Structure formats: structure tokens, C-alpha cells
């Protein structure tokens, strides 16, 4: 029956997406039938994922149906005057509501990021700009710690390497872990190069310096892969994120000379190298070698999973280019945000949002939240575009 509806809102909701939504909705109703017969956790999970699309689609269809009905009513010469004015009013308000519903439908159609439900690691490293970059890297670590603490996301510092040099505030590498489930989805807006413009404390001539700090948000996997979705299980050789332990070189650093009872060393640094990709993680923050080992593995798994996901996204971008020309995509190498102290502003270059209260950003408060929210909207728009492109490619292929 839905097929008969004349679509009013073609401009904002493409037929490709509508087809996709209907496909998903019919899958949902099939799953719901199966669930009423017997319960299966996997089926229930998938049905749960599809439920929002289904309900928004129903809303959208209802709106369109009523538009058709109201129009018919208005076109009918027998309709009495009072009813006619009511119908006109109704038609206007429904037409007004439709774009918002379409928008929600589009968002509901975006496939969930594979890491969306996971906790995450945030790695912060200074880029160009010398000591000033190290200083700001440390400030950013504090900013995210405070952001997460304020929201009850349970952040801990996993690794904090300070630079050989002047003060205690120079970070050469920091990794924080955010244990809350879904933290990856909240913080993934932050991956990229952050730029700071200010007059450093050490600058004698009052010149503004520009330096950069790179932030990477990585998915954090639990210690053991069991109990995870098989697609995300790094211990399962068929998973995209599988790591073969044979391909990881483990080294505990040690110099020559006497050992055993003769000496009493307190450090227990460990280094892991993923041979195929050359990814290296070293860890020495803990007194316990077991703890250093665990943390190093956690970071290694996160880095490799993120790199593989990144590679997959890159492939999709290449595909899309064929379908719709240049696609805006911000990689980890791109400048995403500027913190300007002189003007007390923070600008995100993706969403174009500017906040004129730098403190409320740097203390991880409302300002940062606003910027991140604007990026989330921007990302969702990009993802809708990408989805559209993909569906178009699919359709072309099917026609062939």
C-alpha cells in the first residue's frame, strides 16, 4: 500500500534512501515475527537496531498519506467551507513538519559506526611547534580528562610521557582511557590536528606562535575477546580486527651486566611491535610488568583496529569519488580546530562553529560540548551523503 503514496518531499529525501528505509523496515517486521516465536539475542539486537528506522519511516509515511488525503479533500468541490479551512491548516502544518521527519529518517539510516558502543583511548601528541606544542598537548589532556569526569565517563591516564626538558608540563605522549561504553562515539569528533595560536610564556617579543597537537581517538577492546561480537573479536581469526600473536614481537628492555639477586631494578619497560604494519607501542608507567604488558596490548589492539577501519573508510571514499565527485572527508592529518587565545575563540573548521569563550572549551565544559555537538551534526550530514553515494553505486550495479 505504501508504494502508492505520491511522495511530496522528493527534494530532501531521495528515492534511493527511501528504498533502503523500506527494505530495513520489512526486515524489521520479519525479525519481529521470528522473535514472537522464539527469543534469540542476536535477532533481538538486530531488531533493536532497526526499530528507530521503522518507526520514523512509519511517521514519514503517515505524514505523506495525510497530505494526499487532505489534498483530495481540498480538490473535492463538495467539501464544505469550514472543513476546507481546517484541511488547509492541517496541510500546512503537516508540510512544515515533513522536512524534519525526513531529516530524522536520514539520520536513522546512517549505519552505526562499528566501534560506536566501545570504550575508547585518546592519544595526544604534540606536533609542530616545539615546547609550546608539548605544553598545549598537556593542557588538552587536562581538557579531555575534565570533560570526561564532568560527564561521568570514568577517564584514567594510561600513559603520560613527559619530554626531556624544562618543566613538568611538557607532554611528549599521553594516552587516556575512557571506560564508559559508547565513549568512542562521543569522542570520535576529536580525531585530527588541533591548532593553537597564542603568545607562549617563553616568548619575549610578544609574538603569537602557531603550534599543533594531534589527537587520535581509538577503540578500546576488552582484555579478552570472548563475549564480544564476533566481528569485533580480535582473538577470532575471521574478524576484521584479528591480531595474530605470532606477528607481534614482544621485547622487555634490558641492558647487560649482572641480574637476579645481584641487582634490584625497579623499571619494567615493555615494547610491542606489530611486524606487518610496523606499529610500535612501548609502556613503562607501571611498576608491574604484567600491567605494562596489558596496557601495551590494549593500545596496540586499538591502534591496529583504528588503522584498519580507517583503511576501509578510505576505500569507500575512493568508491564514492566515482559516483559523486569530490567528497569532503577529514582524515587524521587534517587541521580540524583552532584555539586562538588572543581572540579568546575556538573555531572548528569542519562545522564552521566558533565559540567566543575559550575558557569554557578548555575546562572541558559547555563550550567544548557545543563544539563537539556541531561536529556531530556535520559528521551525520557527511555520512548521509556517503550513504546516498553508496546506495547509488549499488543501484547502478544492480541495473547492470
Amino acid at each position, binding site marked *: 500500500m505504501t508504494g502508492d503514496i505520491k511522495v511530496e518531499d522528493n527534494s530532501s529525501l531521495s528515492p534511493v534512501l527511501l528504498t533502503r528505509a523500506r527494505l530495513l523496515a520489512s526486515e524489521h517486521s520479519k525479525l519481529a515475527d521470528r522473535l514472537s516465536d522464539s527469543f534469540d539475542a542476536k535477532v533481538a539486537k538486530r531488531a533493536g537496531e532497526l526499530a528507530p528506522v521503522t518507526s520514523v519511516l512509519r511517521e514519514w509515511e503517515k505524514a505523506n498519506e495525510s497530505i494526499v488525503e487532505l489534498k483530495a479533500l481540498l480538490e473535492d468541490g463538495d467539501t464544505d467551507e469550514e472543513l476546507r479551512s481546517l484541511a488547509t491548516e492541517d496541510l500546512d502544518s503537516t508540510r512544515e513538519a515533513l522536512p524534519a521527519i525526513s531529516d530524522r529518517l536520514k539520520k536513522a539510516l546512517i549505519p552505526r559506526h562499528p566501534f560506536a558502543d566501545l570504550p575508547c583511548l585518546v592519544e595526544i601528541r604534540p606536533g609542530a611547534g616545539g615546547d609550546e606544542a608539548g605544553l598545549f598537548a598537556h593542557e588538552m589532556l587536562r581538557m579531555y580528562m575534565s570533560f570526561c569526569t564532568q560527564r561521568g565517563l570514568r577517564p584514567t591516564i594510561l600513559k603520560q610521557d613527559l619530554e626531556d626538558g624544562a*618543566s613538568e608540563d611538557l607532554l611528549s605522549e599521553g594516552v587516556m582511557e575512557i571506560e564508559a561504553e559508547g565513549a568512542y562515539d562521543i569522542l570520535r569528533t576529536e580525531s585530527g590536528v588541533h591548532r593553537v595560536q597564542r603568545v607562549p610564556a617563553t616568548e619575549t617579543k610578544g609574538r603569537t606562535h602557531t603550534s599543533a597537537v594531534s589527537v587520535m581517538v581509538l577503540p578500546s577492546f576488552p582484555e579478552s575477546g570472548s563475549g564480544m561480537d564476533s566481528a569485533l573479536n580480535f582473538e577470532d581469526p575471521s574478524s576484521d580486527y584479528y591480531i595474530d600473536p605470532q606477528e607481534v614481537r614482544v621485547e622487555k628492555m634490558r641492558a647487560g651486566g649482572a641480574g637476579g639477586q645481584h641487582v634490584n631494578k625497579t623499571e619494567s619497560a615493555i615494547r610491542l611491535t606489530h611486524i606487518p604494519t610496523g606499529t610500535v607501542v612501548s609502556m613503562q608507567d607501571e611498576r608491574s610488568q604484567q600491567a605494562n604488558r596489558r596496557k601495551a596490548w590494549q593500545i596496540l589492539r586499538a591502534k591496529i583496529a583504528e588503522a584498519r577501519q580507517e583503511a576501509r573508510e578510505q576505500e569507500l571514499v575512493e568508491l564514492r569519488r566515482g559516483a559523486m565527485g569530490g567528497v569532503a572527508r577529514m582524515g587524521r592529518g587534517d587541521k580540524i580546530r583552532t584555539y586562538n587565545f588572543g581572540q579568546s575563540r575556538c573555531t572548528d573548521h569542519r562545522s564552521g562553529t566558533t565559540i567566543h569563550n575559550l575558557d569554557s572549551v578548555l575546562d572541558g565544559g559547555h563550550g567544548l560540548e557545543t563544539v563537539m555537538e556541531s561536529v556531530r551534526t556535520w559528521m551525520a550530514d557527511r555520512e548521509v551523503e556517503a550513504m546516498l553515494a553508496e546506495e547509488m553505486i549499488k543501484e547502478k550495479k544492480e541495473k547492470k
Partner: protein
Amino acid sequence: MPRLPTSLLIKAWEENPLLPRLLRECRTLVSARNELRWLRERAQRETPSREWRTRLRAMCRQRSRGVPLQYIIGDQPFGDLEILCERGVLIPRSDTESFTNEAAKTIQGMAKSRNEHSNSKSLRILDLCTGTGCIALLLHQLLSPNFNLKIFGVDISPIALNLAQRNLAHNLEQGYLSEAASTQVQFLRADVLSQGTSELPTVEEILPQLYEHEPKSHEPGSGIETESQLDLLISNPPYISNKDFWNGTTSRSVRRFEPRLALVPPQSTLPDGCNAEDIFYHHILRLSLKYLARVTVLECGDITQARQVVKMHDSMTKSLAQSGEEAKFDVRIWPKTEQECDENGFHLYDGARCVIIRRM
């Protein structure tokens, strides 16, 4: 010890005035920074309010005099356990942690290859010169999921036994050890070197307790020998020679602050061809053969000493063979390969090793 370059001290001082003190023992900035962080965390945890700064300064002062970090902080991680440390008892080393892991792996590998129903399988383990009890306790943690254990930790020092007992309680309390450990691990006093002439009991005298409360039907058909069979005999005995204690091989901090009793074997009458520093191995190997230990793991100071232990074992088994006892052994020195060394933090030529003897 070479002098630290002044430039390094200045750099450290600029970063934090407490760092140069720690550098005396740590030698590198990275290591000193780590220790400062660990000390700070401990000072803040132990001393509420603002007093912690004073406490931290005192801790750093102690460290600069060479007091081991573990005696200041009061514990040392060992595997997934937290071992309390105290003056008078040797601090657990990471090398020993690796040997203990390897011993557990060997035991598990053997059980697997014999396809034993692991849960019902009882293991009798003897840890001689147990000190803090770290080896006995870590073995319980590693093996208790798969075996029904009976572990004896033996030491001559009452201070050590007292600490070992507290370590058992502490790790139970922290939940690092399973409840079963409270009855399956025991610490007892005996003298490994004694031949019945001192007041202290010998290992032979206390060992029967290890077999108490065990069903006699255990492994039917293998007779009396199996009755007295040990599954694992493990030890990190004193093995430093008097010479190496004084000539700089042993670090100053170890020499000054850790108990000599746990490091250098006492003077005693030596059997033919046995070096003074190897006397414990002589006695332990004798026990290993007498009680038909399935696996024996002995920590040694370096490869040379490990080879010496292998030699001692060879000559003991040869004389046994001459008197008609047939037994086959697989003897190896671990770690051996470059990979084994890298993964476990050993230098390819220098540093501690362990000898692993398997009775076939």
C-alpha cells in the same frame, strides 16, 4: 658507579628538585621520573591532607641513601600479586617472576601432554628458601584454576616466614588469590643445608606433612615411589659468591640493605668439586632425586652457574645409574633463544638463568 654528569643533574633539578636524589640510584631520567611518580602516589595515598609533601621528601631522601624503592613503598608487584616487602627479607625480582611463570607453563604443558583430567589432579609443590613467599603464592595463582594444589614454602628465617604468612593473608584479602589458597599454601621453617645436626628440622623431616590427608589410592599401581613423588621442586636459593658480593657485581643498594642470609650461602663443609656459592644446589638436587621430583626449577645467577648446576645434576644421576637406578631426565637452561630472552627481559649473555630438570 660512574659519576652522573652535572648537566644531567641540573636538567633533572630544573624539572623537579626531588629528581636528582632519585637519580643516584636510578641512573636515568626516565627511571627517576617513574620512581618519583610512584613515590608521590604512595605518599598521597598514605598521608592525607598536605602532609604528603613532607612525606615525599623523606621518601626521596631515603631513596638517595640507596634504600630499595620496595622497602620504602612497602610492596612489589609479582605477576598479578602484590607482595609486601620488609627489611630482612629479599625483594622479589622480575627475573624470578619469569622463572615462576616458566615453571607453571612447564607443569601445564606436561599435564596437557599426558591428557590428565586436570581438576582432579593433585599437585605437590615445594618452594625452598621462599623468602616473601612470592614463588609459592604466584604458583598458586597460576595453577589453582587447573589443579588441586598442596604447596609448601620453606625458609630458615622467622622474619621471612612471618612476612610470607602475611603475604598469603594480604593477597587473599585483595582477592588476588582464590579462597583455596588459605588451606593449600603453607609456610614452614626448616634448614635446607642441615644434616640433622642443628636444632632446626631438615626438609626431610617436615616433608611428610605434604602427603597428609591424601587418599592412598592416588595413581594406582605405581607403588611406594609415587607416594613420595613431588610434582614441582622450585627454589631461588642464596647463590652469590663471597667474591661477587664484594667486587661490585652485587649492587651497593642490594649489599647494604637486603639480607645477606638470602644472598650468600653460609660457610659449610663442601662436597668434592662444589663451589661454596653452589652448596644449596647440591642439597636441593639431592632432595629432587630422593623425592623423584617430576620438575625441578632452580634460579641461578648467570649462565656459568647454571651450567655448573647441570654438571652437578649429571654427576649425581650417573652415580645413581651405577647403583642400578634407571631414570631419564630432560635438562635445559632457560631462557636460551634470543626470542625467549627478549620477551622476558633477559640479556642474551648476561644475567640470571634458571635450570629446568624434568624427570621423564
